[in-house]
């Protein structure tokens, strides 16, 4: 027996050792070297499409292991943004790992505006705007960002995200407000005490009492992240002021049924540690005031309790409607709304949280400033090793194939979308640092708007024209008749004729129809038209594809859609008419431009849904009690394969009455043959035209493989300039002590005029600003604005102007004697806000200097 046990144990040990030392079947990618060697132009020459050959996705949910896995060379990139300070420090200190920073999550304090007394009989101090406003000065946002968020956050005062273009455009105003509401606990205390007394409360033994009872505040504190510490910090501050604070620690679910679902007047909470997420750069945030501060935001009781001042209410409503004639008017409205938002302070904004996207040190990839890596549209085009071309890369991601993939109403999960993006090739792509759309499969566009519509163009790939009226041609398609299987023209639906507020003419690239789908089949016009038919057919009750879940979004679309018209078939030119407006012409063009999808894979889905075996949308699948269609795995694949076989035999072309004219000779047969070959080789139906194609899917093992699409037409370095955000780096220099102008001289100086002196020689004082990026001067043409704000010792804004450019990367602020005279004596502050066209993130610098009386600089013996 003993021998048997020993022999068994020996066998087990030998087995373990053999398996352990045996090399794995596919050798893992080498660990990242610490040395960064840049690729040469020679290595990139001739390379098309993706810069790596294979990307393998694997499930990895444990953020704590990410640094170790990257250092061990087991993964090269992690898809989820990391907000954990410990992991961030590990990444920062690692030689093999590196990271990119993204914004997008915001932490704030939601205050209960009901009152002043609640149904519980208690007093709610946050009913008073002045007390809410004072909280801005009570909270030390630097402490929150540095200590509570471990440096993974930046202070935020305003409803505008500090990383989005509107904040940059209003950087001067924002800076002024930030200084006005800077941490000043004494001022906050004074205001709160005054207002509390006005409410009838009294301080007894250091505690506020109302109607003989202590003023008790209930804090709903979220427990999942650093907001737990934030909630405790706020509670401590309020307790120091004499309030009794009851801390209720709650998860998202538990808290939401209190702060969202109950009437704030019921008094179940007074403050809540809230958070908001943006997954893409929002270039236009004009609506945020209406959403966050007025009953128009949401229908829930909390929003209905908001009582903005009449001026604020009107302003927010106009901003939401984009009711302004010029861009300048909009900016003025935004600036005023920011001021009023701070006075209202139904929410106290605390920090913009930073998420880091982890990667190996020798990997580079474009990361979206708001959405991080998972929200980046350019990651497939820019992903590369810095020291070589090609190779395999492993992505760790917390979720994979979370929901079924289909191109009509499939998975919308962020990590599924990240992978899908690599297989797709949109006609326009957003710049990850500014959110501005740039052309990918479009040569140019013309945006025509009505005279009264304020639209701004930034990039030169499109033109903006203004006309009095935009009539929609009678021949334009505006609807779809499912019974007749035909488009409805504008002339048929609106014999009296209609007009639109915008027309977008999209000029597709000349070689569009030379391009191929992943399965080798060639593009055709049917790939553009069929997705449009589907949009209408799914909203038509007469169609077997009718989907009630599609209706609400379709009806919202129909409100502004005014028709589309194919102007030219080859090269393809399409006009799209709409009443929908965005401030950026690039966004208007991007949201209108039709996107091609392979009609033959859509056809399989249509056939499967018509037969009642599968459904494109989750909702319809549940209603029919069938499977939600997946083109990549599961029970859907054999069903689709059966339909492919039948369609191939019959050469079925859905909507043949329209599409028959748009497909080429033998195209139907060739498409189905190519798809059948594709399916036979890869066992799925996911076909698109992006830089990567889906090679294999392993749902249960939790992995998926993308391989480079060899026929992708674009040069591999087309988007590489977007790999790194060009955030300006500032160095501001100037004197620390300046002699002020004497009262005698001051009266002799003119009162008004430029704050700056053009002639440096006669200026009273000069400050030099150096703007660089990675040690090189920041290109002059890329700088949008260099604003400065000059504050005197009492915090009053004395001057605001723009700096003057000098030689490369150098700017100067030369203050006139008049400006200096207005400062008086004391400690002053010069604040600089630099905005760039290459990144939405503004950069700030500050210089403190003292003005002393005339002769104050003379040395006293």
């Amino acid at each position: 027996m003993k021998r048997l046990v020993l022999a068994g144990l020996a066998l087990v040990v030998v087995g373990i050792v053999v398996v352990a030392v045996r090399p794995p079947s596919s050798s893992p990618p080498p660990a990242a070297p610490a040395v960064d060697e840049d690729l040469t132009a020679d290595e990139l020459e001739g390379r098309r499409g993706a810069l790596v050959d294979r990307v393998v996705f694997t499930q990895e949910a444990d953020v704590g292991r990410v640094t170790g896995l990257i250092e061990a060379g087991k993964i090269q990139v992690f898809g989820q943004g990391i907000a954990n300070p410990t992991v961030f420090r590990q990444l920062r200190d690692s030689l093999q790992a590196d990271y990119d920073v993204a914004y997008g999550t915001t932490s704030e304090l939601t205050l209960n505006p009901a009152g002043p007394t609640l149904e519980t009989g208690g007093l709610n101090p946050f009913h008073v705007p002045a007390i809410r406003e004072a909280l801005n000065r009570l909270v030390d946002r630097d402490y929150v960002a540095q200590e509570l968020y471990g440096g993974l956050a930046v202070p935020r005062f305003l409803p505008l995200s500090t990383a989005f273009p509107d904040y940059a455009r209003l950087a001067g105003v924002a800076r002024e407000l930030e200084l006005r509401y800077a941490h000043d606990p004494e001022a906050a205390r004074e205001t709160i005490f005054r207002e509390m007394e006005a409410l009838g409360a009294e301080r007894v033994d250091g505690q506020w009492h109302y109607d003989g009872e202590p003023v008790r505040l209930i804090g709903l504190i979220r427990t999942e992240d650093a907001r737990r510490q934030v909630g405790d910090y706020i509670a401590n501050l309020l307790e120091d002021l004499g309030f009794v604070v009851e801390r209720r620690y709650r998860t998202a679910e538990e808290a939401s049924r209190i702060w969202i679902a109950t009437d704030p007047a019921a008094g179940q909470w007074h403050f809540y540690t809230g958070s908001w997420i943006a997954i893409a750069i929002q270039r236009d945030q004009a609506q945020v005031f209406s959403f966050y501060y007025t009953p128009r935001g949401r229908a829930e009781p909390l929003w209905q309790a908001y009582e903005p001042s009449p001026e604020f209410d009107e302003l927010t409503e106009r901003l939401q409607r984009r009711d302004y004639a010029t861009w300048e008017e909009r900016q003025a409205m935004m600036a005023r709304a920011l001021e009023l938002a701070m006075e209202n302070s139904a929410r106290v904004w605390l920090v913009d949280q930073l998420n880091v996207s982890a990667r190996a040190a020798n990997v580079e990839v474009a990361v979206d400033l708001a959405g991080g890596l998972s929200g980046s549209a350019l990651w497939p085009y820019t992903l590369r090793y810095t020291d070589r071309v090609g190779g395999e890369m492993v992505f760790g991601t917390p979720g994979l194939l979370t929901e079924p993939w289909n191109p009509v109403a499939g998975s919308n999960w962020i990590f599924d979308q990240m992978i899908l993006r690599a297989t797709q090739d949109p006609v326009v792509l957003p710049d990850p640092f500014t959110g501005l759309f740039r052309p990918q499969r479009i040569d140019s566009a013309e945006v025509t708007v009505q005279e009264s519509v304020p639209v701004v163009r930034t990039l030169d790939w499109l033109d903006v024209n203004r006309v009095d009226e935009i009539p929609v041609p009678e021949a334009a398609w505006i609807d779809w008749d499912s019974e007749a299987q035909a488009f409805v023209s504008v002339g048929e639906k609106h014999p009296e004729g209609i007009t639109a507020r915008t027309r977008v003419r999209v000029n597709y690239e000349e070689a569009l129809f030379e391009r191929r789908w992943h399965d080798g089949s060639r593009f055709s016009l049917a790939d553009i038209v069929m997705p449009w038919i589907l949009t209408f057919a799914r909203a038509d009750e007469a169609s077997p594809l009718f989907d009630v879940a599609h209706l609400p979004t379709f009806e919202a679309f129909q409100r502004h859609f005014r028709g589309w018209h194919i102007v030219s078939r080859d090269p393809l030119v399409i006009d799209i008419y709409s009443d929908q407006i965005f401030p950026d012409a690039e966004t208007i063009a991007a949201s209108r431009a039709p996107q091609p999808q392979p009609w033959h894979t859509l056809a399989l889905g249509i056939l499967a849904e018509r037969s009642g075996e599968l459904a494109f949308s989750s909702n319809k699948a549940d209603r029919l009690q069938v499977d939600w269609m997946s083109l990549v795995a599961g029970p859907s694949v054999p069903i689709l394969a059966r339909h492919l076989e039948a369609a191939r035999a019959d050469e079925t072309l859905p909507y043949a009455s329209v599409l028959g004219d748009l497909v080429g000779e033998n195209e139907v047969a060739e498409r189905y043959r190519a798809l059948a070959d594709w399916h036979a080789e890869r066992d799925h139906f996911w076909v698109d035209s992006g830089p990567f194609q889906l090679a294999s899917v392993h749902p249960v093992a939790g992995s998926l493989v993308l391989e480079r699409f060899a026929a992708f037409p674009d040069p591999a370095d087309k988007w590489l300039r977007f790999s790194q955000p060009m955030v300006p780096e500032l160095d501001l220099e100037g004197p620390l002590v300046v002699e002020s102008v004497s009262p005698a001289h001051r009266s002799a100086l003119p009162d008004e005029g430029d704050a700056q002196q053009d002639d440096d020689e006669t200026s009273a004082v000069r400050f030099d600003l150096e703007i660089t990026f990675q040690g090189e001067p920041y290109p002059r043409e890329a700088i949008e604005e260099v604003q400065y704000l000059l504050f005197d010792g009492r915090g009053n804004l004395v001057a605001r102007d723009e700096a003057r450019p000098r030689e490369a990367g150098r700017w100067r602020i030369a203050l006139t004697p008049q400006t200096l005279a207005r400062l008086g004596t004391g400690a002053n502050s010069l604040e600089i806000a630099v905005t760039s066209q290459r990144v939405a993130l503004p950069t700030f610098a500050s210089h403190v200097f003292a003005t002393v009386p005339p002769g104050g600089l003379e040395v006293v013996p």
Partner: protein
Amino acid sequence: MSQSPAPIQRPARRGWLRDLRRLLLYTAKRLLALFVTVLVGVYLTIVIANMGGQVDELRRVQIRSEAAEAVRADPAFQDLSSEERHELIERQVALEVERLRLDEPFMVRSVDYLQQAMRLDLGRAEQMHSDRGSRAVYDIIVERLPATVLLFGTANLLVFFTSVLVALFLSRRYGSALDRSVVALAPTSAAPGWFYGIFLILLFAFVVPWLPAGGMVAVPPPESNWAYAGSLVRHLLLPVAAMFLSQIFISIYSWRTFFLIHASEDYVEMARAKGLPSRLIERRYILRPTLSPIITSFLLMLIGLWSGAIILEQVFNWPGLGSLLFQAIGHRDTPVIIGSVVIFAYLLAVTVFLLDILYALLDPRVRIEGGQR
């Protein structure tokens, strides 16, 4: 002095019928009791998983928040007026409420859940999908079963047979150095498998990177069957080792104590006194009478595979039933939770019933009606 009546010799046939009647009656009672137990257990699960219906309220708030955020984040809806946006949100909410049947009282739904579950009609998940994309609860569960059976089957069988054999061995060497070592190491089993797993991963996946840190197979999975099997074994080593380490010592200790108690029974002493060989004593006098508890333990261990181990699977990123249940609880996906529980409940009931029968077969002392024939 009265004479006692002579015992009446009943025909053997009547005795057999009586036994059969008793057996059927016992079986019926037992099955009924087990059925009621399963019924109550499953209904309690339904009520608890839904917090007595309070989850409905949570879901409504969640649905509304998700719809509102989706509309807020979509630039296509930015130019809608507040009323239009609210209407859009309301319509989205109504669709989801209808889909999840939240417009029906929880009590009605709970009875539906129960009767479907008892019929083993697992239905459709409300939020989740199988990894391959199916919404059928059956597919969701069955898809994860092989991974669970592989990991927990390997580890548990290894622990079970090793511990029984080693315990038997130690019971013959009571007080030896090895025996004392096992007793001393038994408290190490207080730490769960995932605790050892973390250290093993640290050691063998990061410090000395010999083995994978997690997952079931290499990424991407090897194409040849042999390479796939090899990869599977490499990925199995650490989690199996973690489970083995966490269970083995306490298991040996328990079985060793159990065998020691039985080894001191009078009939075993008598056998020893008769000079029978120790292997014969072990097999016939110790193992055979203790077969019932051993089989009970074995069968319960087997069905215990069903529940997996939530944290261990998370630590090793193992796609098993434990992590599935964890996800289902997170999503509050009642059908999936009920599906997991009802299958386990039925398995347990069937096992208990089988054990009742097996006991009677294995141990002649076990008889219906207190041993009367």
